[in-house]
């Protein structure tokens, strides 16, 4: 049992528990804030998967952008939403949510099944990658490489996404304008 492994379990535990809390919580605000925790834990997991850059991006965009956006929207939507939320019944497993829980559980079983069957560690291309030393090692610096790749190999998707992002933001801004001014 290495420290990495302990860390991994710890982080994934936090991520799952907080996600569960966010899912089961009737309080919107709470679930939003708990979702922060999940995101942070995930970022930690990215790090453990040797993707520091992604982890950072995760924190910046998700925690810094998306969550703030959500909170912002929530607060904009006013008092009635909160009232509605409070009225909901507090039991975790109610009859209404039972199908959804069942569905999720079954899905989980299926997924688990798929995962275990696939035996991801022994996939041919992974074996090949290990044998060709194409594996990222913990001490390798990958940020340069990412930057280069972005500007060369993945330039087209990069640009397309930029435009998409632009359009989405413009669209969002347009949508959220007051109706009277439209």
């Amino acid at each position: 049992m290495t420290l990495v492994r302990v860390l991994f379990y710890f982080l994934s535990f936090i991520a799952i528990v907080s996600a569960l809390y966010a899912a089961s919580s009737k309080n919107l605000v709470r679930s939003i804030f708990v979702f922060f925790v999940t995101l942070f834990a995930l970022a930690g997991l990215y790090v453990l998967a040797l993707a520091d850059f992604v982890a950072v991006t995760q924190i910046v965009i998700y925690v810094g952008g998306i969550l703030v956006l959500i909170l912002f929207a929530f607060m904009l939507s006013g008092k009635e939403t909160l009232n509605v939320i409070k009225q909901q019944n507090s039991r975790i497993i109610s009859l209404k949510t039972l199908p959804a829980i069942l569905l999720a559980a079954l899905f989980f079983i299926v997924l688990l099944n798929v995962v275990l069957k696939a035996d991801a560690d022994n996939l041919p291309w992974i074996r090949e990658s290990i044998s060709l030393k194409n594996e990222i090692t913990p001490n390798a610096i990958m940020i340069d490489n990412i930057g280069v790749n972005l500007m060369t190999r993945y330039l087209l998707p990069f640009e397309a996404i930029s435009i998409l992002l632009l359009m989405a933001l413009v669209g969002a801004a347009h949508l959220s304008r007051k109706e009277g001014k439209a």
Partner: protein
Amino acid sequence: MEDFLHSIQILNYTVAAVALPLLAALINFCLPAKSKAAGWISTGAILLSCILSAKVFAGVWNNHEVHAQHLWFTIGKTEVFAGVLLNNLSVLMLLLVSVIALPVHIYSTAYMKNDDRYNRYFTYLSFFCFSMLALVVVDSLVLFYAFWELVGFSSYLLIGFWFTRDKAVQANKKAFIMNRVGDIGLLTAIIILFAQYHTFDIVQLFAEKGLIAQSIINNGLWVGPTGQIPALWQYVACGGIFLAVAAKSAQFPLHTWLPDAMEGPTSVSALIHAATMVAAGVFLLGRVYPMFTETELTVLAVIGCFTAFMAATIALTQNDLKRILAYSTISQLGFMILAMGVGAYASSLFHLATHAFFKCLLFLVAGIVIHQMQHIKDDNELDIDPQDISHMGGLRKKLPLTFIVAIIGALALVGLPLTSGYLSKDGILIQAFDWSENRSGWFKIIPIMALLTSWLTTFYVARLIFKVFFGEFRLLKSNPDIKLHINDGSWQYKLPLVLLAVCCLFPLFSLNPFSFEHAWLFKGLKSANFVESESIYHTFIPIVVNVLSLFVLYAVYAIYARPNSFAFPQSGFLYRLSYNQWYIDDIYKRFIVKPVLRLGSVCFWIDRRVIDGFVHLLAHVSGYIAKLSAWADQHIVDGFLHLLTRIVQRIGNFARKFQSGKVQYYLFSMLVIVLLLFVLKILI
């Protein structure tokens, strides 16, 4: 050759004598109503018939038989003949009927002259004469039956002549139906004879050496020359004939129609219900006499005797003039049947002849009396029954001629010497005693009952005469201010009375007023082996009967004609039995008529409920089956379709839920399906 021509002539006369009344009937039928010609046409016809009958009689009586026939029709291989048979019996009847009918016709022209349907009356009367005359001369049982029933039919018409009177139509219905019972008996007998002998010919059947004479009853079989059938059917045939006789001649148990038949015009009662038609039964017995065996004759004797006695007892207490006479007729007919039963064939027919005259006479007298009473009733607007003898009395001064002939008739009926009745009645009584002589003690009852009956006869006849003609006019007593304009009437009344009265005296029948054996009529009819047994009865009986009769006569005079007469108690059982005619009508009503009608209703009930019920049940069952199949059609066949549509609908509804517009639902279902795909993938 001469013989043959003679026969032809006689046949022609006979046919003419029979056909003339029919012709008269047809002419009268076409005449306008109320035409007075009708009476004279009928009377003329019967007069001619009478003359022709006399000629026929002269030609045939104690001479040779005449028998001629003609093929009527063929059925299968059986040839049915129609023909005429003239022998002593039939010519006697022929003459008797026409001779009696003549005065009645004359009488009727006066008696019915005010009736609305005068011509219809004579149509019926002539038709009756035709049927009766034909009945006595025909030679075939089929024809005999036909005229037998036609006689009954004309009697039906005449009894119900005044058809608006309820009692009259009840009576004629009763008469016809009771006669029908007899007819059925006769028909059965004829059919049995036909089955046995394959012929309807009376000569072939009943001649001296005929088919009947050649048959014997052996081992329970009735063996004849042409075949054999069980002996039972011989008894049935005789029983059938007896029924016929009983019905026509009003013998117990079928006698009740005759008193009721008095609802018809009195002249009709005189002719049909006293003299001729009712005698047809005796005539039938005479025709088929050879058929009866010793035992059957005894039964006849018993029934005749009983009827005579019973009717006489009933006549004792009746108050209706015609009813008394009707019961007297029944009683006298009983005597005739008795005579037939004891083998006094000739005496029976002799009595038939003499009875015809005096009873007809008495009825005509009754007719006059009733007619006059009716006059009194109409003139003074009284509410009385003109036939009730308790209103009458002392009429001898008002109706002298009527009174005299009534006395003659009555004496003849009682059977006092010098009258024709004496001759015939004593003959019967004497022969009855002769007959019982050779038999065991019990058979003595029959002649003794007959004797008793003859005294009873004396009693009721005397009662009738004294009540009507002697004493004081009782109606005058109770209604002092009534006017009386009554007399014997015109010559049309008087002539017949005188004629008949003469015929009631002895000289017409025998020059010896005291011995029936010397009567020509008796000689002509007696069988060849008749022996004049000179037993003690021949002198003893007449004396006893007549002396006692005189005592009875005086007694009756004492009771009814003397002013301070005592009255019989009118409450005893015997009185009631007699007054109510032995309750026989009630018994019939209760035990025959009602059950038959009830049976009819039961049959109808069965028809409605059981048979139709069954049909309806079938209909219902098929209806239910139809409904069931309709139900099956609707619910099973259609139901299957509906189920299909329902399933489709359900599926549609089910699928529609996923199209609810709820985004999460869409997603959910999508996921479920994906899941299912997975599961399937794993499972397969």
